[in-house]
């Protein structure tokens, strides 16, 4: 909806938008700043914080004292593992619903979506109990499975909306040329489906990385991903602003970068195609 406006109006819009953007982004900017300060400087007034010396000390301390890298690895394994497992299960389902729709397709899709609406706390104890029974409490395997299940509806839905945009005529042409189901999948569909699959993976890694109900309730020291590790700073000892900032910066930076690439998928993935 780009309309011609006077340069003065554009300047005003620009200044206002930048001001608002910076206010919203400020907390994130601030933890970046604090993470490069000593604990003593981090609690001083904002002006003193900005003018004090910069240091990488906190990053080293966080790694030394709390084995940060272990929790980071847990986050990577849980987020990537649950997403890939989910995609593995969802691709065939989405493919068949998009290309061989039946009378029940709509019902199945809606039902899958409805499982996403189930409030986690309503099934907290049963899952907790099952985890104890199966020895999955505080294990990465258990979390991979649970996060795969809670994101599966979104994965199926996103893939379905992407697959539906692939023109069926191309598949029919391939079939006419005598392509088998296998070569149809491998040479015709896969190349066209890859961008959609990549977008789906991206958004769901982000969602799984930031998930903070099951990760907090089902892990302890061993399998805790970054969400749970950061939560341990809610009852800290002594000064901790710089350490908390350094840990936070390392926890959110990879996802911030991925998130900026996934703006478009975000709308599609989280509104289930209701807003385009």
């Amino acid at each position: 909806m780009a309309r011609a406006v006077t340069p003065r109006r554009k300047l005003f819009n620009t200044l206002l938008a930048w001001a608002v953007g910076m206010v919203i982004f400020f907390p994130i900017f601030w933890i970046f700043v604090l993470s490069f300060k000593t604990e003593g400087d981090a609690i001083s007034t904002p002006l003193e914080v900005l003018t004090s010396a910069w240091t990488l000390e906190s990053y080293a301390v966080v790694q030394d004292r709390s084995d940060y890298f272990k929790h980071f690895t847990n986050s990577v394994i849980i987020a990537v593992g649950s997403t890939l497992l989910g995609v593995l299960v969802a691709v065939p389902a989405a493919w068949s619903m998009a290309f061989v729709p039946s009378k029940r397709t709509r019902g199945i899709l809606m039902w899958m979506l409805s499982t996403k609406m189930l409030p986690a706390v309503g099934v907290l104890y049963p899952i907790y109990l099952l985890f104890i029974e199966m020895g999955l409490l505080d294990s990465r395997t258990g979390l991979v499975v649970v996060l795969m299940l809670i994101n599966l509806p979104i994965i199926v839905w996103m893939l379905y909306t992407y697959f539906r945009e692939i023109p069926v005529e191309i598949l029919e042409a391939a079939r006419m040329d005598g392509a088998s189901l296998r070569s149809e999948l491998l040479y015709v569909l896969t190349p066209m489906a890859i961008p959609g699959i990549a977008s789906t993976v991206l958004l769901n890694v982000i969602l799984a990385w930031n998930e903070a109900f099951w990760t907090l309730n089902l892990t302890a020291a061993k399998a805790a991903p970054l969400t749970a590790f950061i939560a341990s700073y809610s009852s800290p000892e002594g000064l901790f602003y710089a350490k908390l900032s350094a840990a936070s910066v390392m926890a959110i930076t990879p996802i911030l970068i991925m998130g900026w690439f996934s703006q478009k998928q975000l709308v599609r993935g989280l509104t289930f195609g209701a807003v385009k």
Partner: protein
Amino acid sequence: MATQHSRSIARLMIAPATILLLGWMLVPLTMTLYFSFRKYLPLRGGDLGWVGFDNYVRFISSSSFWPAVATTLIIVGGVLFITVVIGILLALLLDQPLWGQGVVRILVIAPFFVMPTVSGLVWKNMFMDPVNGFFAHMWRAFGAEPIQWLSQASLPSLVMIVSWQWLPFATLILLTAIQSLDSEQLEAAEMDGAKPLRRFWHIILPHLARAITVVVLIQTIFLLSIFAEIFVTTAGAFGTKTLTYLIFQRVLESQNVGLGSAGGVYAIILANIVAIFLMRIVGKNLDK
């Protein structure tokens, strides 16, 4: 077009996802329902038998139930109001021609990607701490007494934290919707001499109605179950116990599983009421 053969293959391909989700839904749900009718105290005697609707009655008549309902409503309502109103204004602003639009957009959506435990703790300590927080420094710089944010103004503080997290979502969706608006219609209205406010009221807002509904419904579902933000800031103290948090405490902290499960069933019913409306909108779109 599809042969009998490809149909049966198609059915086979849906099976894994369907079976997994069916199990994920039915098994824990059945257990919650079962527990909700029993006196079940894992640490104090275990399963003590059938009690009918006793847990359901006790959950509602406990002194913490109505305050939890009020807290939930204030948080959900407050965050919805702030994110939708500011989200519309921001979307309108970002839709205007301006320099560096892409960068501003990145700045605005960034909070959505910050994990809930980080944003909860960063706001609690680096901003709202009454001694060393950013706000306390600001207040003192102007000679004012710093506010004890999370204890004296606990609900507004939480609404602020959660709104900061969800504003990007509302803005992004509303912006997407505004950008799909037919600009000719707006130009025609402009030529006819319609003032900006009238153009907003009669053209833009009706066009956004659907997107706003979607934002409200989806956010409601997520906001009803916010957990980590409360867990790391107040842990349910200072009147911040939502329905979700109350159930969590009943189940895991005081290990009264029967009572907590009855609460869980209420939460599931509540979420389903919201879900029905959302599903109707999504379903309509599916037919197009």
